[in-house]
């Protein structure tokens, strides 16, 4: 029964939507114990956008990112995905909204077992053919890797790509990035971000990336949301926001901004 329900709702998420809005946040607040982590967030995210969420540490970036796939729910306020309440069918939502964490989780086992881990509950994944797996690895730039290779023996960059390929096998419409490159050296970070940008174009993905590194983000994101103490203090393109004081107000160094422009 629950399978039938989730199947139906999964279809709802794939219905055509009005005016291309994927996510709509309405007066979203998050309180944890007596701390007010996020305050009165209001914005939309449209299909195909690459949005960077920038802020100093403790600004609430990661908490905000967790709301896009309902790993965290707002204390008050409303979030919709494709016009439907975001928590109508959470499993279907999470298939549609993939995430790449800062430190990717690689499970004990082979590369293949890691890629097909969702096959434990999802038949379409468990029936994935080898050439489809290799395609996914190719898409993320992991070539010359054996499917029987022990996944935890891969390097940090390779593990990050493996986690990305695993997410792509769910065929998501949205990709969330939680400081995905902060543990990698700058060259490798850029390579992975280039790869993600290529994927975004090829698969028409919507990308929402949380980062404290606005230097890196301004290469890819057309739009930036600046968070400070849980509030949005800037939302627009980088050039416009550079003219305001938003980056400085968010605790991000001014000379960094000047260097980048």
């Amino acid at each position, binding site marked *: 029964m629950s399978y039938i329900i989730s199947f139906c709702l999964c279809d709802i998420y794939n219905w055509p939507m009005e005016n291309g809005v994927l996510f709509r946040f309405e007066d979203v607040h998050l309180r*944890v114990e007596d701390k007010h982590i996020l305050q009165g967030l209001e914005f939309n995210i449209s299909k195909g956008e690459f949005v960077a969420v920038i802020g100093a540490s403790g600004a609430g970036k990661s908490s905000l990112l967790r709301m896009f*796939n*309902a*790993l*965290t*729910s707002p204390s008050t306020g409303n979030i919709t995905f494709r016009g439907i309440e975001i*928590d109508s069918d*959470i*499993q*279907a939502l*999470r*298939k549609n909204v*993939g*995430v790449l*964490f800062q*430190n990717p*989780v690689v*499970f004990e086992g082979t590369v293949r077992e890691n890629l097909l*881990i*969702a096959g*434990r*509950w*999802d038949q379409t994944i468990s029936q994935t053919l080898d050439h489809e797996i290799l395609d996914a690895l190719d898409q993320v730039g992991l070539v010359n890797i054996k499917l029987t290779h022990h996944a935890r023996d891969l390097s940090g960059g390779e593990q990050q790509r493996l*986690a990305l390929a*695993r*997410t792509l096998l*769910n065929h998501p419409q949205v990709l969330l990035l939680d400081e995905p490159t902060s543990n990698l050296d700058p060259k490798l970070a850029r390579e992975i971000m280039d790869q993600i940008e290529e994927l975004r174009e090829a698969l028409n993905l919507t990308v929402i990336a949380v980062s404290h590194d606005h230097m890196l983000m301004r290469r890819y994101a057309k739009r930036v949301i600046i968070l400070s103490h849980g509030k949005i203090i800037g939302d627009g393109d980088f050039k416009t926001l550079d003219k305001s004081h938003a980056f400085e107000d968010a605790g991000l160094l001014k000379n960094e901004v000047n260097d980048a422009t």
Partner: protein
Amino acid sequence: MRPDFYVLSWNDLLVSLLFIAFSLFLIKKWKLGLENTLLIGTLRTFVQLTLMGYVLTWFFDQQHWAFMLMLLLLMIVIASYEGTRRQKQVIPHFFAAMLVALLGSAILILGTILLFILDVEPWFSPYAAIPIGGMIIGNGLNSTALTANRFVGEMKHREKEIETLLALGATPKLAVYDAMKASIHAALIPNINAMMTVGLVQLPGVMTGQILAGIDPIIAVRYQIMIMYMWFTTATLANMIMLAIVYRQYFTSKLQLRRELLREKA
């Protein structure tokens, strides 16, 4: 040999106090500072078990199913309380989880033994129900208390893994499957090892007691085999019921991990 040959009198018991006196002497010699604790322990063993003997005799004389069920229920409540008290982790509703796990395994396993294996007449005869029930409850308590502790430890350790699986679309049950598997393995492997070595390395207490009391070793062994099987099934069943209740406490209805619970004091 018949059992009366081995009946312990109060005087015999007094002689066994020599063991304690000897330990006391050794402890003093090595200046271990355990004398008072040992004396209290010695006294409590004597008082508690003697009282229990009288309580059991009284209960056994009642010959009524309601008394037997009441005593078993009381044992389960005390065991659940003890299991909760022993817990180092903060587990919501753990008392209830223990209660259901112990009650469930006691009903199923004790029921099977009384009705189908020993064919006890009447089925509520306390001579069978109380000692066997006590073994099931005690074993269930020890096993579930350890498993729950280990399970929460595993969840803390695997928090990121669990969230990654949830983010890929897993249900909470599948997201904690590896943590459950690891903790239940840790609980059952010692039981399996005991089944591997029983009779070779050690003679179990129940069997030793029966042989001392004059029972034919062949019969005593049969009881022991049944008890080994019963122990294993109790550990399996009680742990599974307990985990099925406990893991749910760590997730919201929106399939979110309650991370704040994993952050609480260990």
